[in-house]
């Protein structure tokens, strides 16, 4: 499906990212959509370096998100800390494998796959690769859509900390991993938004 396609930029045109309108930019790099007033660019400004910066920050956050405790359980004076992985192992040992699978996928595997996918797309763009452009575009769309599901563990901790407050009997407190985890999810979402998929299709300069 990679027939001769007319690139909008070559005609001095750009699509508005919000309303889908066509904006005539001509020699300007940036402009404003006359219909909805959003900023319109031929290509997102400094897309590659901004995406790399956000991606690397997200990866740094991924480490404490998985090594620090996500919550602390205090039960009859005894305190125990849980990381995300120790939670997964706990549920595997108690035969709750669907739950273990959901937590493992959403919190451990998905963010890692998303970061790897974006890094792969960035490297291929920088090398000027022309192979499998449509597949890489689809990979980008999938990576962009699935990132938000990693937030699930933050919500679980919020609910548990709100409900399990039974004084000396038992209580659950959020751990320091929560903030790194949320930061990691938000940074990967910003990284996906900073990337301009049109770069996949641009000829090498």
């Amino acid at each position: 499906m990679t027939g001769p396609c007319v690139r909008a930029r070559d005609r001095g045109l750009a699509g508005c990212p919000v309303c889908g309108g066509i904006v005539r930019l001509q020699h300007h790099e940036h402009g404003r959509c006359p219909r909805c007033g959003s900023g319109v660019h031929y290509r997102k400004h400094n897309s590659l370096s901004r995406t790399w910066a956000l991606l690397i920050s997200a990866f740094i956050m991924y480490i404490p998100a998985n090594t620090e405790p996500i919550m602390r359980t205090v039960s009859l004076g005894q305190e125990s800390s849980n990381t995300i992985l120790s939670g997964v192992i706990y549920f595997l040992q108690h035969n709750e494998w669907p739950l273990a699978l959901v937590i493992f996928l959403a919190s451990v595997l998905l963010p890692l796959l998303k970061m790897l996918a974006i890094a792969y797309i960035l490297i291929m763009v920088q090398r000027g690769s022309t192979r499998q452009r449509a597949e890489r575009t689809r990979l980008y769309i999938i990576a962009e859509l699935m990132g938000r599901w990693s937030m699930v563990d933050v919500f679980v901790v919020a609910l548990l900390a709100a409900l399990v407050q039974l004084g000396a009997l038992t209580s659950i407190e959020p751990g320091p991993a929560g903030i790194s985890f949320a930061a990691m999810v938000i940074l990967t979402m910003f990284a996906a938004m900073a990337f301009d998929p049109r770069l996949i299709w641009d000829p090498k300069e």
Partner: protein
Amino acid sequence: MIEAAEHPDILFICHECDALQKVPAMEPGSVATCRCCGSTLFRCPRGGTEVPLALFVSSLILFLIANSYPIMALEIAGIERETTLLGSALAFIHEGYPALAVIVALSSVLIPGFSILGLVYVLLSIHHQLDWPFTKPLLRWVSRMLPWGMMDVFLLGILVSLVKLSALADVVLGPGFYAFAVLIVLYAAAVSSLEPHFLWEQLDRPSTRHAEETA
């Protein structure tokens, strides 16, 4: 009432690959795909503004119910504790994580609430040709915020905590939970019934009432 069906060939630029192409007139309910990269350009909505308006108004009602009643309650040894959606976000404040409280409150309550309210306003204005002010900046802001609303992820979070807690104590689901579960389905249907491209086209079109006044 505005029909979405009658549109001629339109020129469209693919967001993903920048291919400029002419899209022929389409059947309502069909999807236009890019000739170059194969990604979705836009969907041709089925019922004009009537279907999205109905779905967003119902979502708004359910949103208010889901946020006013407790979603679940926990009972251990006679002590009962319950929480609402916003209450679970506020738990982070008591534990010394205000940043997390803000993130949870924004993604599960404030952004979805603002999006639903904003879209009801914009759709009402278009559907009844009311020419209300600020529809354009409002729709622009809602489009930007939509990916940050995470009510569906929160529902998964409720289900996971349900399983975790059921080992610990008796868990009772509150009316807020059922409203929230139905809300997720309705909200997903509402968002997918909406095609921003057509909304903008209709916002741009001078309304018939306005035309009559000037005539």
